[in-house]
């Protein structure tokens, strides 16, 4: 039986791990390579790096981080943040990333998803969707949540599936950093509308939120950051908890 996945996400800036509360007020939580190794040894099903390096001159730091991590961690590694082109994707994959997540570039130029999934295979193309509720629908935001594209999240998700995305990483901008739980309504609406796996993200504050993401949000995988890296819970604890709630996990 296929298991639901738990994916710790590390926000990386200038080669160091940070985690933002609503994308501001960053704290340093250490070396990404060491952190990733701790997670993979602790049973993480995958590792995700989100590169939030702002300045162009430091953009190359992520390649070094990915290269060093992939020599130590033998579980899948997804890298996102600032991925603009086929060339960026190629470079990350060559450094040892197994999947690349594309956010703003996919909104601005959906063809990049089409082209990259053709070139590298759907299995390594994750489309990251940042969505915010507006009335009775959700809209897609870009540039780390700063710009409203006005696009409808459900329609956009379907389009990305058609363009060859292998997975969708859906973040609720309303919930990110709040620790009040995933927007399970958003997750479920998208998950039931596409045939590719959905990774839920944004808002996890306790282990019940992970359960909700899978049971109510219909997510194939749950991504979380702060509950893991400030030592609140280990990945193993999370898995045991999910298991106790009847959710299939790899223990």
């Amino acid at each position, binding site marked *: 039986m*296929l298991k639901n*996945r738990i994916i710790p996400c590390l926000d990386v800036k200038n080669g160091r791990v940070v985690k933002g509360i609503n994308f501001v007020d960053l704290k340093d939580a250490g070396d990404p390579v060491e952190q990733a190794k701790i997670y993979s040894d602790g049973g993480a099903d995958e590792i995700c790096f989100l590169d939030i390096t702002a300045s162009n001159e430091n953009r190359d730091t992520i390649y070094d981080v990915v290269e060093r991590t992939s020599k130590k961690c*033998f579980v899948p590694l997804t890298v996102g943040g600032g991925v603009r082109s086929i060339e960026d994707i190629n470079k990350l994959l060559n450094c040892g990333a*197994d999947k690349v997540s594309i956010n703003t570039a996919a909104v601005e130029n959906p063809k990049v998803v089409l082209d990259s999934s053709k070139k590298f295979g*759907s299995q390594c193309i994750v489309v990251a969707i940042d969505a915010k509720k507006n009335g009775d629908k959700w809209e897609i935001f870009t540039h780390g949540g700063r710009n409203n594209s006005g696009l409808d999240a459900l329609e956009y998700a379907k389009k990305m599936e058609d363009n060859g995305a292998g997975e969708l990483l859906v973040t609720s901008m309303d919930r990110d950093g709040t620790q009040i739980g995933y927007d399970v309504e958003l997750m479920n609406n998208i998950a039931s509308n596409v*045939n590719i796996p959905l990774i839920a993200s944004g808002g996890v504050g306790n282990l019940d939120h992970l359960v909700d993401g899978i049971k109510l949000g219909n997510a*194939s995988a749950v991504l979380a950051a702060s509950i893991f890296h400030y030592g609140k819970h280990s990945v193993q604890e999370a898995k045991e908890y999910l298991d106790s709630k009847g959710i299939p996990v790899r223990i």
Partner: protein
Amino acid sequence: MKVTIVDYNSGNISSVINSFKEVAKDKVKVEVTADLNKIKSSDKVVLPGQGSFKSCVDALNKINGLTETLNEFAINNKKPLLGICVGLQMFADIGYEETETKGLGWIPGKVSKIDNQNGKYKLPHIGWNQINIVKESKIFENIENNTHMYFVHSYEFIPKDKNIISATTDYSSNIVCAVENENIFGTQFHPEKSDKIGLKIIDNFINV
């Protein structure tokens, strides 16, 4: 001993390289190349594969003499070869991804899309799934039955001769996830991404 990972532009093979180097340490030489003479002189060959069946077959055929060299290595000389993911799928006669494409024809059978039962099963089949070992295989030495392995694929290999199947996994149906036919080994899952147990499978192959 020398193990060669065939680098035929089949997509991302860095994880395969990293995992083999991790297991091999200094005992075994790991080469990454498409050089025909280097492949011929290897003791073992790894055939990775990412992307579509068609793109991988096309990439193999683009390198002059590569399929012939692999044929000679695996079929005539019966030296150990491990196919991973699409690398395994290419053992088939034919694949149906994108368009009908001829495979290597080493193991009679076809590669077709997993039946998602009208959307009941998400595709690609991504994540950790248990393997059901159905026959003894050298690459499963000291691997427990029902161990989890990491999968990413939408197509499955359906061999004609069920006796070559060494493991299956349950996703929509019993999907063939490992084969062994004399010196030819294949895994649909990614041992290079399946943590310590995956590395053990790689170690087993190196020690075949």
